[in-house]
C-alpha cells in the first residue's frame, strides 16, 4: 500500500530539494579571478552535472502495509553509512523510530535521477533539508487526513512512533495511508529546531548492519536474473591494447560455453556458469597491438610543475616578487604523490537484460544516471527505456564513479539475447582500471627573522581527475586546469599577507579518475608537510605556528580551524612530555567546510615507520550519526596509513606493473594504531565526513617522522632510506 503519490508532485519543496541535491561540487571551489568565477557559474548552469531529470513524486517514501516506511535513497550506500543518516533525518520528522524505516536505492526508472554521483562527501549535507522537509510534509498530510476522518481539528492529532491518535481514535500511518482517498496539501511545515531533536545526533545502529552481519546483504555479484548467462571478458594486461587476432577454437569446445562474442575491442566468453566462462576464457588466444608504451619516468616527467597549462587560483599580495627579491633566503621544497588504485573489495560487475525496447541493468555504481547514459550510447537505445538498479556497493572510493561494466554487459546481452552477468577479475581491476594520478608540488616561502611567514606559493602539477567528466573538453579548456577536483585543496587556508597558488594541468596516457578525498589528498600532503618543515625551521611548535596564521574573527572557517587545533592540543596531549623514540606530527585541512585535523605519534621499529596513536578532531558541523562519523574517521585513518606507507602503482611499457594484492600491499590489522576521535559542531548544518579525515593523515605522519628524526620525507609512499 503506498501513499497517493500524485499529491507530492506539485510541491515546491521537491524542486528545491532537487536543486539542493544537485548542488554541485563546482560552486564551492571557485578561485580568485572574476573570469574564473564567471566560468564556474556558467558551468554550474550548463545543466551538466547538476540537474535532476525527472521529478516523479514516488521517489522519496512509501508507507508499507506493515506500517514501515520505505525510503528510496537517491544516494548510494557504499559503506559510508548514508542510508543510516538519511533514515535518521527522515525518522526525526516522521516521528517514528529509525527501525521503522527501510532504505533501498531508488532505481533510475522510478523517477528521480541524481545526476551528481554519490561522492565528494556531499550526500548528507545536500539532503539535510530536503529529506526532513519531505518527511515533515508527509507527517502533516497524514495528520490532516486523520483529522478529517475523525472529524477533529488537525491540532488535536498527535503522532508518536508511527501512530496517529486523537482522544480515543488511534490508527497507524499505514492504516491512514490506506484509507485516504484524497490528500490535502499542507503548507511547507516548519522543521524541528535542533533543541527538539530526538534522533539526529543520537546513537543508532546502522540500518544495513544486520544484513551485513548475517551475510544476506546483496551486492552486484550476488544478484541474479532468471535464465541468466555469465560472461568473462578477455582483456590485455596492457593499457589501450587493441585486438589484432583471436583464436577461440579451443575455448569454443570448452564445457558449458554458449558463445564467444566480439564487438570491436570487446571480447567475451559467454557460458552457463562463471566457472565455465572463466575456464574457457583462459583458452582464448589473442594477439594484441599495444600502442601505449608509457614508462614510469615518462609519467614523472609529464607531471612536473612548469609543464602543461597553468591556472592561477589564489593570489593575495605579491608573493612572487617577494620570493624573487634576492634579499633573503627562499625556502623551497618539492613533493610527489604516486599513482594509486582503489582496490575496493568488490570488483566491478554488472547484469544486463536487453530486450526489444527495454533494458534492465543491475550494477553497483556511484552514479546510476551515468550508467544509464553509457548504456544508452553503447547499444543505441533511448535513456527512458533503461532502468538501472543499484545493489549495495562492496566499496567505492571513487572507483565506482567510473562507468564499470554496464555497457559491456548490455552489448553482450544484446548479442546473445539473454540476461548477462559479467564481472572483473582482480587482475582486471588492477590493470584495466582507472587510477589516482601522480602529482608534483613545489612550495616556496620566505619567513621574517622572527619566524613569521611573509610570502608563500604553491604550484601543483596534476592531470585532470574529474572535471573533464563533468564539463567535457571545452569546460576544461575554459577553466584552464582541473582546480575543481584535482586541484581541490591546493589553495592555502592560512593568513599570510602574500600568497599565490597555481594548478598546472597536464594530460597523461593513463586512465585517470577520482580516489577518496580527490585533490585534498595530494595537496594536503604537500602543503601541510611544508608547513611542518617551516615550523621546524623556525624552531616553533607546529600547532602554535599554525595558530599564528589562523587569526581572523570574521572568517568562520578560520575560527573553526582554530577551535579544532586548540581542541587537538588538549585531547592529544600535544604539549605533554613524550617518551623516547616517539615523534609527533600534526596536519589540518578544510575539505568543503569540514575541518579535520590529526595529531599522530610514530615510532621507528626495525627500520620501519610504525603509527602508534592518532588523535582526530573533526568539525563537521551538525552531527547526524556520531558512531557513523567515528567509523568514517577510523576508515580514513587506516586508508591514510595505507596510502602513506605502502601504496604505489607504477607503469612499465604501457602496463600497470601491479596485478595482484601481493604486489600492492594495503594496511592490515597489524597497522591499527590507538585511535581517538573527537567531534565538534562548529555549525548548525552538516558537512561531509567520508573524506575530510583522510587528508591530514599523510602529512601528520611525515611531520611525526620529521619530529623524531629531523628528516623531511617528501615523496609517497614514505621510505626511510
Amino acid at each position, binding site marked *: 500500500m503506498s501513499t497517493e503519490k500524485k499529491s507530492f508532485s506539485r510541491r515546491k519543496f521537491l524542486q528545491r530539494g532537487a536543486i539542493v541535491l544537485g548542488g554541485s561540487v563546482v560552486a564551492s571551489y571557485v578561485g580568485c579571478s572574476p573570469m574564473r568565477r564567471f566560468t564556474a557559474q556558467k558551468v554550474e548552469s550548463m545543466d551538466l552535472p547538476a540537474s535532476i531529470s525527472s521529478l516523479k513524486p514516488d521517489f522519496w517514501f512509501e508507507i508499507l502495509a506493515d506500517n514501515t516506511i520505505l525510503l528510496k535513497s537517491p544516494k548510494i550506500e557504499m559503506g559510508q553509512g548514508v542510508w543510516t543518516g538519511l533514515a535518521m533525518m527522515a525518522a526525526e520528522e516522521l516521528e517514528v523510530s529509525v527501525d521503522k524505516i527501510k532504505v533501498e536505492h531508488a532505481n533510475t526508472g522510478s523517477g528521480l535521477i541524481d545526476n551528481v554521483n554519490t561522492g565528494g562527501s556531499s550526500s548528507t549535507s545536500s539532503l539535510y533539508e530536503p529529506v526532513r522537509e519531505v518527511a515533515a510534509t508527509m507527517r502533516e498530510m497524514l495528520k490532516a487526513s486523520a483529522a478529517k476522518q475523525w472529524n477533529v481539528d488537525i491540532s488535536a492529532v498527535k503522532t508518536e512512533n508511527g501512530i496517529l491518535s486523537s482522544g480515543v481514535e488511534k490508527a497507524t500511518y499505514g492504516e491512514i495511508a490506506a484509507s485516504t482517498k484524497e490528500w490535502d496539501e499542507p503548507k511547507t511545515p516548519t522543521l524541528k529546531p535542533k533543541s527538539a531533536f530526538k534522533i539526529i545526533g543520537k546513537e543508532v545502529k546502522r540500518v544495513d548492519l544486520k544484513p551485513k552481519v548475517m551475510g544476506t546483504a546483496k551486492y552486484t555479484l550476488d544478484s541474479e536474473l532468471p535464465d541468466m548467462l555469465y560472461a568473462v571478458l578477455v582483456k590485455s594486461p596492457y593499457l589501450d591494447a587493441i585486438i589484432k587476432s583471436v583464436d577461440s577454437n579451443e575455448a569454443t569446445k570448452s564445457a558449458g560455453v554458449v558463445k564467444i562474442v566480439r564487438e570491436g575491442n570487446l571480447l567475451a566468453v559467454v557460458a552457463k556458469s562463471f566457472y565455465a566462462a572463466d575456464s574457457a576464457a583462459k583458452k582464448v588466444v589473442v594477439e594484441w597491438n599495444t600502442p601505449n608504451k608509457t614508462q614510469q619516468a615518462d609519467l614523472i616527467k609529464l607531471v612536473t610543475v612548469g609543464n602543461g597549462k597553468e591556472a592561477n587560483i589564489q593570489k593575495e599580495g605579491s608573493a612572487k616578487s617577494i620570493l624573487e627579491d634576492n634579499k633573503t633566503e627562499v625556502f623551497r621544497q618539492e613533493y610527489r604523490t604516486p599513482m594509486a588504485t582503489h582496490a575496493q573489495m568488490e570488483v566491478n560487475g554488472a547484469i544486463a537484460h536487453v530486450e526489444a525496447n527495454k533494458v534492465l541493468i543491475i550494477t553497483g555504481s556511484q552514479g546510476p544516471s551515468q550508467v544509464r547514459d553509457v548504456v544508452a550510447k553503447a547499444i543505441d537505445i533511448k535513456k527512458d527505456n533503461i532502468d538501472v538498479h543499484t545493489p549495495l556497493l*562492496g566499496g567505492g572510493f571513487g572507483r565506482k564513479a567510473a562507468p564499470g561494466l554496464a555497457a559491456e554487459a548490455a552489448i553482450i546481452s544484446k548479442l546473445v539475447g539473454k540476461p548477462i552477468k559479467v564481472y572483473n577479475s582482480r587482475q582486471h581491476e588492477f590493470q584495466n582500471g582507472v587510477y589516482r594520478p601522480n602529482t608534483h608540488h613545489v612550495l616556496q616561502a620566505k619567513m621574517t627573522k622572527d619566524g613569521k611567514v611573509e610570502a608563500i606559493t604553491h604550484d601543483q602539477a596534476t592531470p585532470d581527475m574529474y572535471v573533464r567528466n563533468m564539463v567535457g573538453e571545452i569546460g576544461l579548456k575554459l577553466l584552464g586546469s582541473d582546480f575543481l577536483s584535482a586541484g581541490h585543496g591546493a589553495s592555502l587556508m592560512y593568513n599570510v599577507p602574500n600568497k599565490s597558488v597555481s594548478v598546472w594541468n597536464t594530460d597523461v596516457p593513463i586512465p585517470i579518475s577520482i580516489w577518496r578525498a580527490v585533490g585534498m589528498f595530494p595537496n594536503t600532503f604537500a602543503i601541510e608537510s611544508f608547513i611542518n618543515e617551516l615550523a621546524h625551521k623556525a624552531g616553533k611548535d607546529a600547532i602554535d605556528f599554525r595558530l599564528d596564521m589562523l587569526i581572523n574573527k570574521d572568517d568562520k572557517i578560520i575560527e573553526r580551524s582554530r577551535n579544532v587545533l586548540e581542541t587537538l592540543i588538549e585531547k592529544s596531549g600535544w604539549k605533554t612530555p613524550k617518551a623516547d623514540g616517539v615523534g609527533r606530527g600534526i596536519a589540518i585541512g578544510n575539505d568543503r567546510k569540514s575541518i579535520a585535523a590529526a595529531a599522530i605519534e610514530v615510532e621507528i621499529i626495525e627500520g620501519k615507520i610504525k603509527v602508534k596513536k592518532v588523535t582526530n578532531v573533526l568539525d563537521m558541523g551538525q552531527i547526524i550519526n556520531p558512531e557513523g562519523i567515528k567509523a568514517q574517521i577510523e576508515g580514513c585513518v587506516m586508508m591514510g596509513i595505507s596510502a602513506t606507507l605502502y601504496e604505489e602503482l607504477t607503469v612499465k611499457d604501457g602496463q600497470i606493473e601491479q596485478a595482484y594484492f601481493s604486489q600492492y600491499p594495503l594496511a592490515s590489522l597489524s597497522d591499527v594504531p590507538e585511535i581517538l576521535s573527537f567531534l565538534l559542531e562548529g555549525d548548525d548544518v552538516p558537512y561531509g565526513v567520508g573524506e575530510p579525515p583522510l587528508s591530514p593523515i599523510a602529512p601528520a605522519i611525515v611531520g611525526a617522522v620529521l619530529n623524531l628524526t629531523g628528516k623531511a620525507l617528501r615523496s609517497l609512499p614514505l621510505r626511510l632510506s
Partner: protein
Amino acid sequence: MKIDFKLNGKATSIDVDPAMPLLWVVRDELKLTATKFGCGMAMCGACTLHIDGEAIRSCSVPVETIAGKNIITLEGLSESEANLHPIQQAWMEEQVPQCGYCQSGFMMAAAKLIKENPNPTDDDIINGITNICRCGTHPRILKAIKRAAEINNQNH
C-alpha cells in the same frame, strides 16, 4: 563428477567439474552468497569458510577435495537469528561493517580463531588473521574479536 558433503549441517550432493573451486560451487550452484569473491588467488580472504572446522579460502579449493567433509558458511554459523554466534553478536555490538563485503570472510576467520584461542590478544589476532578490508574496519574487528571471546567465555 558427483561429490557428497555436508553444507551447514545438511547432506548435499553436487555434480560438477571436480576442479571447480568450492567458492563457485557454494555461490553459483548452491546459491549461498555470503561467501564472497575478492581475488580468486587466496590473497584477500573474502571467500573464507570452514572445512571440517578449519578456516579455508574457498576460491582455491577444488570441490573434489571436500568429498565427505563438513562445510560451514556464514549462513550456517549461527543456530538462528535469535541465537547468534558470539562473533556475529560482537560484530553487531561494535558495528563493525562499513561496505560489508569482506566481513563474511573476517567473521569466519575470527570464529575459528576464538574457538582455538579463547582469550586472544591483539598480537594473536594480527598473526592469525591476514584478510583484507579496504574500508578500514580493522580497529573494530580487533575490538569485536576480543568482545566475542568474552561472550564465548561467559556462555561456557
